[in-house]
């Protein structure tokens, strides 16, 4: 895969290391001369010290029809322009960028950026997931909140415990994608039986998450 990485500091360093597996061609642009030098030395890669929001930078970098651009600058509008140049003028297939304002996720997508990522949004989701008082449920949103993945730890007193999926009749608004039964990961089918201490990984729409949790946590004698 041909990847262009623009801006960023530690994030850029991590992205370079993650994609430096010999299968990918990386081009890195950073307009901070000190960061460019550090990235270059740490990763033994040449880093272009130029502004990733300028047309001439893209021309120098020779990134026409690359597969992916990752824009990691601090400023949301800089990332927007970088991705727009990449997509509209250099036909780079996919654009990913960070956004500091979570409200920009939907707007950037509507304006043609494939995957805007808000760290504050993800962090909030993670904190919400981790702070469940019973520590039984964790959640993760994907596709910018269109899909939610819910982890539910099964207790002996739950009605669903010791039942097969067939008996359980999972509502059609949710799907058990896998079951973690330490140390195994089980891809379930109709005859798979849920037992105590299983962790169910369930996909649903965010609007259905509450009733899904209520359904799974229903106790045996509860109607």
């Amino acid at each position, binding site marked *: 895969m041909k990847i262009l990485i623009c801006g960023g500091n530690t994030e850029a360093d991590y992205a370079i290391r993650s994609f430096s597996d010999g299968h990918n061609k990386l081009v890195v642009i950073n307009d901070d001369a000190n960061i460019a030098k550090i990235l270059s030395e740490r990763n033994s890669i040449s880093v272009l010290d130029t502004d990733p929001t*300028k047309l001439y930078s893209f021309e120098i970098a020779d990134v026409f029809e690359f597969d992916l651009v990752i824009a990691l600058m601090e400023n949301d509008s800089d990332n927007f*322009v970088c991705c727009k140049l990449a997509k509209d003028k250099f036909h780079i297939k996919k654009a990913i960028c960070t956004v500091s304002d979570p409200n920009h996720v939907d707007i950037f997508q509507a304006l043609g950026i494939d995957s805007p990522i808000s760290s504050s949004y993800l962090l909030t989701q993670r904190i919400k997931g981790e702070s469940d008082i019973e520590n039984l449920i964790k959640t993760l949103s994907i596709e910018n909140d269109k899909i939610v993945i819910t982890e539910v730890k099964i207790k002996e007193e739950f009605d669903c415990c010791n039942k097969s999926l067939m008996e359980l009749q999972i509502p059609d608004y949710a799907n058990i994608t896998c079951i973690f039964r330490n140390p195994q990961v089980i891809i379930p089918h109709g005859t798979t039986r849920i037992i105590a201490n299983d962790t169910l990984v369930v996909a649903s729409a965010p609007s259905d998450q509450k009733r899904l949790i209520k359904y799974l946590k229903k106790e045996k004698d509860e109607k």
Partner: protein
Amino acid sequence: MNKEKKMTMVIGSSRLGAAIASLNSEQGIYTSIIDIDERAFRKLDASYSGYKIVGNALDRLTLEKARISDASEIDICTGDDNLNIYLACLSLKYYTAPNVIVRLHDEAKSILLEDPRITVIAPSALSFGMYKNLWDTEDR
């Protein structure tokens, strides 16, 4: 507001932005201007009678407060080309103003704003045009 009446919204009370807002206001056009720094409004003419909104134009609530939905002309004149491009794209996508005027210091970036509703003002190109006129008229 009278729907037939024109309305101009200016983003960025730079020298250009303040001059545009002052001119529109003087002509009796309903005008609003946004800047993140209240002190920037000092550049407006003393006779300016439109709205002044202090806020970040990256925040859509600020734009709504300045009545972007009612604007027939949006003039984007912050000192940051990338912000200006983003705001122009946002205006095209979400609002109906038939005229969006954008100041860009780096004229090369105007390739991102190819749309009939957008007019780009590039100070360096205008300055060079004036210089060229002088060159052509002077005996060299």
